[in-house]
């Protein structure tokens, strides 16, 4: 029972709360500023760009240099999954949900084929 809440657990809980407060900063600031500033200011455009660029850095890293189970899938399989997903997106008139499921399904299929020794 003494290790019910190890220090790593507490650290993670504190981290999740602190990251939530950091995220709320923008939401609260947005509420406060709404109706006071115009939407087309360079500062706001810069802030939006930071967000996009960081998300892009995160997604690129998760696809190219993943942690966890994705690391076990060969880079080639991950690239094929992305390519099929992208192809499906344009063939299916931009139905993102269906395209994501097709791309992820492709990766699962490749993994099964490899496990069976067919690839």
């Amino acid at each position: 029972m003494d290790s019910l809440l190890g220090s790593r657990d507490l650290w993670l809980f504190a981290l999740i709360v602190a990251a939530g407060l950091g995220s709320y900063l923008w939401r609260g600031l947005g509420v406060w500023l709404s109706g006071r500033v115009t939407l087309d200011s360079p500062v706001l455009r810069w802030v939006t760009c930071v967000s996009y660029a960081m998300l892009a850095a995160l997604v690129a890293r998760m696809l190219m240099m993943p942690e966890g189970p994705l690391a076990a899938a060969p880079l080639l399989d991950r690239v094929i999954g992305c390519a099929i997903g992208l192809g499906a997106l344009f063939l299916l008139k931009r139905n993102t949900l269906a395209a994501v499921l097709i791309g992820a399904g492709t990766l699962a299929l490749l993994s099964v084929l490899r496990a069976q020794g067919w690839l």
Partner: protein
Amino acid sequence: MTYHLPPPASTSSLVAWRAGLISGLGAPGLALIASFIGFGALARELGLSLPQSMLSTVTIWAVPGQMALAEMQALEADFFAIVVAVTLINARFLPMTLPLFAYLGSHRGGIARKASLYGLGQFVALTFWTGSMRVMPLLPMAQRMPWLYGFGLSCIGVSIVATGVGYAAASALPVALKLALVFLNPLFFLLVFSADVKGAGNIAAILAGAAIGLAVHPFWPDWSLMAGGVVGDSFAFVIGEKMGARRSKPAEPDSREP
């Protein structure tokens, strides 16, 4: 019409709240379920506990920030580095919150009015925002706040349950399906970038962010996202402004009054 609206003549807040609540269980709920099942599975694989995974859905309430937290803690990154990364990756909430809250009229009022506005701010995230921006112009002023509370609560509620389902599924499913689940979110954002992002500046920001993030990661894992984000972005921002490319402007509310 994917979203439920209260009858226009209704003055009952409860009716408007319930219409919002039901709206979150339709198509928006489906997208959230897929996304948070993927996050739940990823969180387990990267070593978060079930309560931690579900709590992050409430506090951070946006998959990109939650993925960044799960990834970076697995890399044993510094506490401060993770908080800064999650905070910056969520910076897009600021320009999203502005036009949405302009629909709610004046902030004047007592403590209760302020508390309900700032409380509502916590719900702002992509799916909630897209649906709300679509519905707000269709509702009279008095129905807007209760509708948003209903919609936000069902969006978060559905997502908390989906996080738990994904977490449980991660151990029960065969390896191939688990792989598909953790692949869902990164692939989703890749596709969103490919399909939806407009404007030379934003596209440059994405390419530069990805390139710099990848290049810096092996040497400086704690801060590679920030390097990709801030350096890549500033570079891209200058390009965007220089080219005079007008980004697609965020939609201004067409009517602030009913």
